[in-house]
Every structure is written in C-alpha cells, then in structure tokens.
C-alpha cells in the first residue's frame, strides 16, 4: 500500500489491508500526439546508501535511539530539513529540498530491489541488470528499455548515454549507446581516426562501432562548448561535472534522451557522520549533481525525470566504528520538472525490533523496480507487458507505480 505521509498510527490503521495497492499500469503509446520530449536519467549510487541518514524518519519514536550519533535531528547546529511531519532530509541536500518544496522532487522510502543478501556486487548486479537474480546477463534494464521502444521513436533514434569511462552495467547491452566522460586530452586528428576506423571495418567491427560512437559523442560535446576539466578524485566536484556534461548532451536537439551515471563511495562502514561528515559530503555531491541537471537542462528540465537508486540500505543500528554495515531497505530519490513531487512515498514499516528485516535492517516495503517501471511507463509509454518481460524479466507481480509523473 502506498501512503504519502505515513505515521505509526496510520500504518496500524492500514495493517492487514495488503491488497490495497494503488499501483496501476499506463500501457499506451500516447505521447507521440503530445508536445512532450521526455528525458530520463538514472543515477546508480554504488556502495549502499544509508537511507536513514539521508531521509530520516524523525517522527518514528525508535529512530533517534537506534541510529545513535548518526541520527538526524530537527534541532541543533545542523538541523535536518523537514519534508513532511514524519520525514526530514539531510541538511547537505539543500537544492533537493528546494525542488521538493516546488513539487519537483520526491522520495521513496523503505525501498529495495528483490535482492536480499548483502553483497555489494550481487546487489548492484540485480539493481543494474534488472534481472531477478545476480549474474544472469551482461545487459542493463535501461539499455533493454531503450531497445524496446519502437524504431521510429525519438528516444530510440537518438540513442542513450552512458556517462563514465566504463559504461555502467545499467546502460550496457545489445542496444547501441553513446559514451562520454569528462577529460582533457587534445583531440586526435581526423585522418588518424578514419584510418583506425577503416582498419576496424575490415577486421573488428565491434571495436569500430564503439570507437565511432565515442568520437561522435565527443564532437557533439565539443560543439556545445563543454569544458573538459582535469580528471581528479574530488568526488563532489566529479559528480557535478558528470551531471553537467550529461545534461548538456540531453538538452541538445539531436542529443540522447536517456542517460545513466554511477557515483561510487557510499559504503560508509566507518565514521559515517550524520548531518555533517563523510556521508553528508557525498549527499552534497549528489545534491550538486541534481542541481546541475536542473540548471543545464534548461527548458528540457520540465520534461525530465531523474531516479537515483542504490543497491541496498545499511543497518539500523550503528556498528562498532560509528558507521553502518550492509542492510536492506533504503531510499530512492526522484527529481525533475516532470516528477509529481513534494511527497515522501512510503509504506513505513516502523523500526520496532520485530518490524526490522532479520532484526537488523529497515524492512523493504516498496520495490524500487516498481518505481523505475512507473517512470519508464509514464515517460516513454512502455507497456506493462514489455516492462515485466524485457526490461525487468519475471516481474509480472511488480506493478509499475502509478502517478509519479505529471500528466
């Protein structure tokens, strides 16, 4: 069941009515008749984001005690930013908070994929491949979603963008993709490019195809005057740079309409921090990336939905080193002018010992695949059958979440 401002009492009221799922499909290709030109971005947060320190259930009576010194508070030097009477946002995410207040951002809480063990790499594989279990394919759900669109579709024609030197798994697969990463090398002469492509044409078309796309994307980016700052390891700046580059490409008339990014570093086993500290810094980076999308997409922002997801959450109790270990339920962030925002979407399970998953983790009550399906259905008109067969195989029971996107 779905409720927007959960409280323990409301949860109790609705207990036992498990059939009241308010999710429905939107299975028609109707958008060709509209003027919309939708964009969809997914950001994979690798390492398992602590949802309870990102979006805190400050209204849950058990929260502050369990999450200890990592817990966010509404008072003090770094007060959390209220989203509704029950949830409050990490103060590092001021831009996201403004979007939320403007109805352009939403949070899904107590969310997870179907994966229930605690391996990062399997969890990321399930999250990005969209398969029911790890290590089933080398393709990602977003790649297959683009492949499932009719050939004449705007999105299918323009292609999809994988940001980063190594294409994120969610965007890998049989459908051709573009690649782009911030870097600063002088361009190679056209003559050498043609000679290498000609060599590949005769002996290795796969390498030729990849190289041709890399060159093409780079030229498109150069034409738009995108800066090529030096690669560095300041993760906050790197997040913003990746987002700026991707946004410029998505905003271009002939540019891609779908993009995937991956941000690393969320595995906060030690000295995680709460309202300030390591996690808050990373959340500030994500916040800057989302703001960069809003600024650089320009008018296209109004047609955009961004979904930021992680492989699983972290333990409710803090561990022996003021961090958290691998857990289960966590948050997903939605942002973009097309998002029907201003809501925390959660069927809050509570934090009582018997409500926790295996007595240690936030119990997942919403399947993040339902969120992804709902966005793909609403943005691109993919049918429920396609979503359940091709994009997220064997998920007929996971209905696309309705009502995430403005009509």
């Amino acid at each position, binding site marked *: 069941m779905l409720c927007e401002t959960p409280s323990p009492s409301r949860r109790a009221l609705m207990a036992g009515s498990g059939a009241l799922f308010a999710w429905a499909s939107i299975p028609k290709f109707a958008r060709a008749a509209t003027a919309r030109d939708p964009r969809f971005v997914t950001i994979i947060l*690798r*390492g398992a984001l602590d949802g309870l320190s990102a979006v805190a259930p400050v209204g849950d009576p058990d929260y502050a005690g369990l999450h200890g010194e990592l817990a966010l508070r509404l008072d003090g030097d770094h007060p959390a930013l209220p989203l509704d009477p029950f949830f409050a946002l990490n103060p590092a995410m001021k831009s996201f908070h403004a979007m939320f207040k403007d109805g352009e951002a939403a949070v899904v809480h107590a969310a997870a994929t179907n994966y229930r*063990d*605690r*391996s*990062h*790499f*399997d969890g990321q594989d399930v999250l990005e491949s969209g398969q029911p279990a*790890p290590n089933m394919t080398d393709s990602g759900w977003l790649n297959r979603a683009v492949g499932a669109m009719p050939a004449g579709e705007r999105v299918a024609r323009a292609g999809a963008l*994988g940001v*980063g*030197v*190594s*294409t994120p798994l969610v965007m890998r697969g049989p459908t051709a*993709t573009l*690649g*782009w*990463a911030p*870097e600063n*090398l*002088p*361009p*190679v*002469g056209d*003559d*050498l*490019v043609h*000679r*290498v492509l*000609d*060599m590949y*044409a*005769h*002996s*290795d*078309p*796969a*390498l030729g195809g*990849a*190289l*041709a*796309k*890399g*060159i093409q*994307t*780079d030229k498109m980016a150069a034409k738009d005057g995108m800066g090529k700052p030096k690669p*560095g*390891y*300041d*993760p906050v700046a790197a997040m913003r740079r990746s987002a700026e580059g991707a946004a410029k490409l998505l905003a271009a008339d002939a540019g891609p309409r779908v993009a995937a990014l991956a941000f*690393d*570093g969320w595995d906060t*086993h*030690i000295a995680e921090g709460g309202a300030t500290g390591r996690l808050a810094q990373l959340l500030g980076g994500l916040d800057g990336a989302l703001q960069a999308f809003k600024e650089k997409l320009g008018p296209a922002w109004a047609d955009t939905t961004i979904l930021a997801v992680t492989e699983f959450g972290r333990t409710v109790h803090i*561990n*022996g*080193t003021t*961090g958290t270990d*691998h857990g289960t339920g966590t948050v997903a962030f939605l942002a973009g002018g097309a998002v029907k925002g201003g809501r925390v979407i959660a069927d809050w399970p509570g934090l009582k010992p018997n409500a926790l998953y*295996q007595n240690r983790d936030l119990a997942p009550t919403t399947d993040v695949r339902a969120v992804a399906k709902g966005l793909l259905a609403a943005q691109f008109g993919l049918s429920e059958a396609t979503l359940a067969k091709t994009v997220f195989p064997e998920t007929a029971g996971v209905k696309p979440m309705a009502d995430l996107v403005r009509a």
Partner: protein
Amino acid sequence: MTSTQAPDPVLVALNRFGLGGRPGDYAAIAADPRGALLAELATPDVATIRDPALPTSAEAIQKVYERNKLERELKLKKPAAPAPMAAKPDAMAAKPAPPDRPAAPKLPQPQQEIFLAEVLARIHKALDAGPGFVERLVAFWSNHFAVATNKDLIDRATAGAFEREAIRPFVLGRFVDMLQAVERHPAMLTFLDNRVSIGPDSPAGLRQHRGLNENLARETMELHTLGVRSGYTQADVTNYAKIITGWTIVGPPGKMGEPGSFAFNRFAHEPGAETVLHKVYAQAGVGQGEAVLRDLAAHPATARHVAFKLARHFVADAPPPALVERLAKAYLESHGDLAVVSKALLAAPEAWSAPATKMRDPWEFVVAALRATKERPDKPQPVLGAMNLLGMPIWTPAGPNGFSDVSAAWDGPEAMKLRLDLAARFAFARKDHEDPRALLTDVLGPKVGEATRVAVARAASQPQGVALMLMSPEFQRR
C-alpha cells in the same frame, strides 16, 4: 576479434598469458611458446622486486605516523582548514599545491613519495619481465585481494608494500599462505576497517562501548575465498568478524611491537568460541582466525571461485566450464598450490584454442605499448595519468572487488576514444623512429591480419603507423 579461428600460439603466450612482446620476443619464443612460459615459472625468485630503497609496510606506516603527528602540531598553531575528503590518488597530487597561506610550513607527504616509488618499481618489473606471465599473475592476485590507495594515507603508503609482501612471495606458492599474509596485512586491515573492529565483550569493547565492523569478515568470505552465494550465512560473517577482532596495527607508541606492523590486540578480541560454517573454533588468540582461514582456503567453494576467476581472466569472459572444473580439481588435489594451478592453465587446450576476444585491460595495454616500443619511463606519472584516464587508477579500484575483468568494462565508446587519444599522443611524442612495418612484424609476428598490415604500411607518418599498430585488434585483444 570477430574471427573465430585458432589464435597464433606465439601471441597466446605473449599476449594472453604475458605482457606483450618487445621487438625480438616473438622470434625468440616462436619455436616453443609454451616452453617459454614454463621456463619463466621455473626462474628462481621471478616474482620478487629487489629494491632496498622501498620501505617495508611498517616503515612506511611509521612515516605516515610522523607526518600525522606533525600535522596535528601545525593545526594547533593555526586555525583548522577543512580536511580534504580523501588522498588524491592521481599523479596530479605530486604537484605542489598553490600557496594559499604564505607562511604555512609545508607538510611532508611521505605516503605519496612512497606510492610513486612503488609504482615505478612495478612498471620497471613489468617492462623487464620475460613473457610476463608471472607479472600477470601478480596483477591478477593483487586485484583479487584488492586494496585502494584513496581509503587512507596508510593504504596509499602501503599498497605497493602489500603487493611485495603479501602477493609476490606466494604467486607460485600456496594460496593459504597468501591468504594468511593478506588478511593480516596493515594495508588490508586498514582498507576493510578491521583495524578498528572491536569485540563488544572484549575489555576494550566493554570500556569504550565500541564494537564490531564486519567489513573484512564479509569480503574475506565473499571476495577472497568462498565466493558470493556459496552457502555461508550472515551468522558466519558475524562470527568470523568476532574471531578476527583484535587483528590490528601497532600504533605510534609501539606498545605491541614495531609501530605499523601487524598486532593481535587481546584487549580488543571478542572472547570465546565461535561457529563458522558449522564448525566450532575454540582457540584463543590469533590462532582462532588463522584456523578459519586455513579451512576457508581448503574449501571446495574457494577452489571453484579461484578457478573460475583465473579462467575468466586468462581465457574468456565466459570460460569453458570443463576448464574451470579442471583448474578447481588441480587446486584441491595440490592443496592450493598456485604453481600447479598455473601450470594446469598452461596445459589446457582451451587456453590455446579460444579466439582472442578479450580486451587487454588498461594496465596490460599501457605496459604492452611500452614494451613494444622499448620505452622505459624514468618517472611513474605518465603511466599513472594514462591509467587514471582509462579508468584503472593503479591500486585504486572503486571497491574491494577490484577492477572488472570482462571486456565490456573496457571496450565502450568512451574507453576506445580515450585509448586512441593516448595511443596517438604516445606515438607522436616518442623520439625513436623505427620503421612501423618492421616493428609490427617484430611485435605481432608474420601472421598478423591483412587489415592491420595494410593500415600500418599505408600510414601517413612513422608515429601514425605506431599509433595504428597500438590500436590494431591484434594489439587490443588477447
């Protein structure tokens, strides 16, 4: 390559198993390519780096301790500046920062100096190796037991020593010995947080109200030994985490031994017997964890995990199951003797018949380019920069699972464009001007494909010909 024909056995030896031919290598081993690899395995001390200038991990950590002490003293004298998030693992970190405070005394960065020296030693070892099979094994195991230099100054200072102390001595020895050396190494104890994991019921835990961190315990089972989904449970992870509480590093005062060396701190160790994989471990002290590691190393799931990863690394992204099975059998029958397993790999017909479909990873590509052109950098920065650009910063993967070992991670559009950028910049910056047609035959042999031969022969210039050779499918794939 799209071709499915059997590969040239000389290139199998040099490229699939080795680090690429230098001019003359192809001709030298053409009569017996497999014999050349076996001869390399039989060379005494073949994996050892002898460089008295490189510090031990304990010495490196002592330098970090001194640096941190100085930093604290400097902070007491001036208002605190915001701390950077992590050490910068790229070559740029070597450049002096712009002077923001004119009078600020300069803080030494020994971890960066040591890191650069270690990287250069690794590059030179790779350039000087024979076919390079042993160096490939070192890189494979180093990535299997990955640490990352951006975790902590200690990891930046000791990643190289970790490879020299915990990986190299055992690449042709026993897996269990490598495992024992890895899991107690300061670089690993720091990288996966065990240094600060404390038994909740230990004296330190009871006094400080601190406790477990299960990071190293989980990755030891998931990544280092059994492999994910091999049957262990959360309870096994938690119990093993308790068993290795107290496995830590001696602090600056040196109360438990040489500062920076491994220590078993009994005051932080969770007392009592624990059950892991249905077996009770009642030993006291460090022997309890060592016993678990011995059993993990001997476990059939570990044999399968290691066999699969070796076959995937050297033969194909989806390795033939029969090959994996044979390697696992060799592992179990030899009690984890990695020389026996490596020889089983060389004896496998699949290894010599599978088409060259795998992409060279960035390290293999960059080293092979240097070997093919007889370039020997006297500074590590250009190689570090290239590795950063290609998405494989040396000893700095994004997570404890190391860098990806499948082609899809390295052959995307952006990656190919960057390889071309690098190949061109490298070729055009060289001083030597050998005939690229002769170089091509010297490095890749007389059977190199027609498209490559024609492209190199028709090159507009000498450097363009070299760039084309470096970008050719025969050079990119193995």
